[in-house]
């Protein structure tokens, strides 16, 4: 049972991720873009951040950089949800400080497996 921040500008993706994680017993906080996510992350520590990369207002990469500046989030696992399987996109996330990535499309079960891998 962890507190997870799920960030995606697509409502259906958010719904799917959130529903899946909640079914797995986690607490989920949703945000539709980096800006919103940063605000929510600041107002309460979460255990794991899942973020889309391409988003309006503030993209996932900037969000990760901003999060890593916060003392609370220096070591928090942050995974990017990316459709772009190309290495450079994954690496952009990593360079910003992401822990890892989940490549879209993923099934709910794959999502849980990866989350468990991170949370233990």
């Amino acid at each position, binding site marked *: 049972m*962890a507190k997870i921040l799920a960030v995606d*500008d*697509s*409502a*259906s*993706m958010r*719904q*799917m991720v959130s*529903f*899946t994680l909640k*079914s*797995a017993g986690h607490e989920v906080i949703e945000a539709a873009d980096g800006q919103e996510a940063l605000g929510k992350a600041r107002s309460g520590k979460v*255990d*794991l951040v899942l973020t889309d990369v*391409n*988003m*309006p207002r503030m993209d996932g990469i900037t969000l990760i950089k901003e999060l*890593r500046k916060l003392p609370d989030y*220096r*070591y*928090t*696992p*942050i995974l990017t949800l990316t*459709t772009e*399987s190309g290495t450079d996109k994954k*690496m952009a996330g*990593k360079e910003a*400080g*992401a*822990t*890892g*990535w*989940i*490549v*879209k*499309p*993923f*099934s*709910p*079960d*794959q999502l*849980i*497996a*990866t989350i*468990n*891998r*991170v*949370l*233990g």
Partner: protein
Amino acid sequence: MSIDVSQFYQTFFEESLEGLDSMEAALLGLDTGAVDLDAIHAIFRAAHSIKGGSATFGFTQMAEFTHVMETLLDEMREGRREVTQEAVNLLLNSVDLLREMIEAAQAGTTVDEAQVGEVQRRLEAMLHGEAAAAAPVEAAPAEDATPPAQAGEPPAAEAPAAETPATDEEGPAPDPAGATTGWRIVFRPYEHLLRTGNDPVRMFRELGFLGETEVTLDDSRLPPFEDMDPEVPYLAWTLVVHTDAPRDRVEAVFEWVEGDCELDIQPLGGADEATSVAADPHGEAAPEETPEATAAEAETAASGETPKAAPEAAAPDEPAAEPAPEAPAAEAHDEPPAPQAASVPEPAPAPAPESTPAAERPAAPAPAAQPAPAPAAQAAPSPAPPSSQPSTQAAPTAKASPTPAKPKPAARPKGDAGSIRVSIDKVDALINMVGELVITQSMLSQIGDDFDAFDLAAFEKLKDGLAQLERNTRELQESVMRIRMLPISFAFSRFPRMVRDLSQKLNKKIELRLSGESTELDKTVMEKIGDPLVHLVRNSVDHGIEPPEERLAAGKPETGVVHLNAYHQGGNIVIEIEDDGRGLDRDKILAKAVERGLVQPEEAAQLPDERVFDLIFEPGFSTAEQVSDVSGRGVGMDVVKRNIRELGGTIEIASRPGEGTTLTIRLPLTLAILDGQLVQVGGETYILPLVSIVESLQVDPNHLNQVAGQAEVYQVRDEFVPVVRLHQVFGLTPRSERLEDGLLVIVEGDGQRAGLFVDDLLGQQQVVIKSLECNYKPVQGISGATILGDGTVALILDVAGLIRLAKAPGLRTPREAAA
């Protein structure tokens, strides 16, 4: 746990359609000027989201298609490809096709493969046109578009899934030849590794899923305590994993830390592996001996057995091992300050007290003894979560496949058929209003409780309360009405695209201006005005705006302007369609009208402009010499006018030759309320829609004529209108049969006029329409009913229906019809 992703379809459809709308709007904005990066980003994002969603939810066709689109857009986004008119056109086509695909998916079907393939080929052809882009397109659809399960994307997640059962089967009988299989991994984190949020413990645990793992700790880099930076991982490890798993499975475990560590993965099988290799069979043969066995054997046994057996084997051995690795693992996320302790569950504490100087533990002075706790610890976490882990881990293989395997997107009925999205503000306003109403109600009931008819103060209060109730009621009504209101931008939004396509087709340069898009009107009215508006805008573009040469020759700017404007006026919404084209040709219209016998040649000259222009609304009237496929055969304008009338609206034309034409449509804001004229006929009250009344007059007997026996016509200026005696239609006894004792209300409906004979005109008021059709049955000549302030029911007259009734030879009255 199996999650049915079809429950997210509706949201996906809705957001995708919205995404397509904004994509279209942004694409339309693209070709008018310099390339706008923000717009391209927005377009890309929309395509990207649809691709992600469609792949996730198993809409393969859509996913493949959007992938190609996205690749093209990506090149534009990164400036590697020019934004050409051709590309924009193709992308717009793609948007149309995607819309169809989503609609098909909503209906549980798919779009014709050939149709999709066609556009997709064109996209690919465009991509291949530039060599740079060729490669990714080829490769990508194949791997990206595969439905979630097969994609095998999160390799690490799948690895354990496949491995866990594998160990189960192979454990009891390890292949002697295969006993050498496994990997030796040297893992040396760089200083910053922990700051990526990665944690060696988790990776080791992953390895544990692959097979039994021996860990050798190298703490040679550990500085003296006072120099230690708690955020730096000083330790390094050599891990030996006994597994059949291929290299990529092992690499997958370290996938996320590539570049954050020194990593060397070598296959087992060298001479120095002899010990552990030898140990294997023993461990298998006698798992019970573990207490005394070498470390390698112990954990061989532990993980060689099924995961379930492992806890038992490990627990008695290392009572502390089980909780320990979990605790640091859990802590690691929250507070990583002590990397060593956190990241190395057992080895760190264990060696530390035993060993004296930290420096002398390089490599393996006593490899058999030292690493012992480590593998045990390693083994422990893996069986520790079996209850939860394998079940979820096994799932991807077992369950993921059915998920995408059913492409039929749950034949869910189009849920949004009759629904509207309402902004929270409106609902809040409504709730607020109801709150007020409750207060007023309680105030009134209190007054009612102790009401004394002679108490003047109480009477004043009652009057105040009633006034307040009236205000609340009106506000509540307005608020409720507003819920059905949508901004007219919903109707306007299709025009940028339409005008663009038409102007390209017609080789005209046209700028479309929109204003007042936030003006609200009733959803039903909006739906019904859509088609007439399309027709009128098409007309403006096709017939109104001249070709560029002609405009230049006339001294006008090359680019014509069509302006759509909307605003509220009184209880109406006014929509104007204005163009700066050639204007209506009075002579041409008149010539046509004379030819059709609509106008007498002699009266043609004096006919005022507005009457002339109104002629274009006559059925079958078209002045277009060349019928184009754009605005059709002129069957439209009369239909347009009729549609607007049916909505209780009006349309007017103003035009000046060479300067342009303005069409003004006036519509009621809602269909639920009507501005009515109350009329009295034989003691009954009827309501005439105000919009249908032309004028009311007192009858001058000199202007009354009898035609062919019974029929009466009345001359209004130079026009003869049939007289309809309402009392006859409804079978009532009028105050007087003599026309001059009553009034004649000249009404217009369906392009025809008639004079309705009534006893008297009463007031005008807004009435709430109650459907007769729903509550009784449709009756010709009557469009509905309403309840008047005194509680009586009044019928609302349908003027067009009444005129038809009156003209019908065997005059069948509503009375007879209803009987």
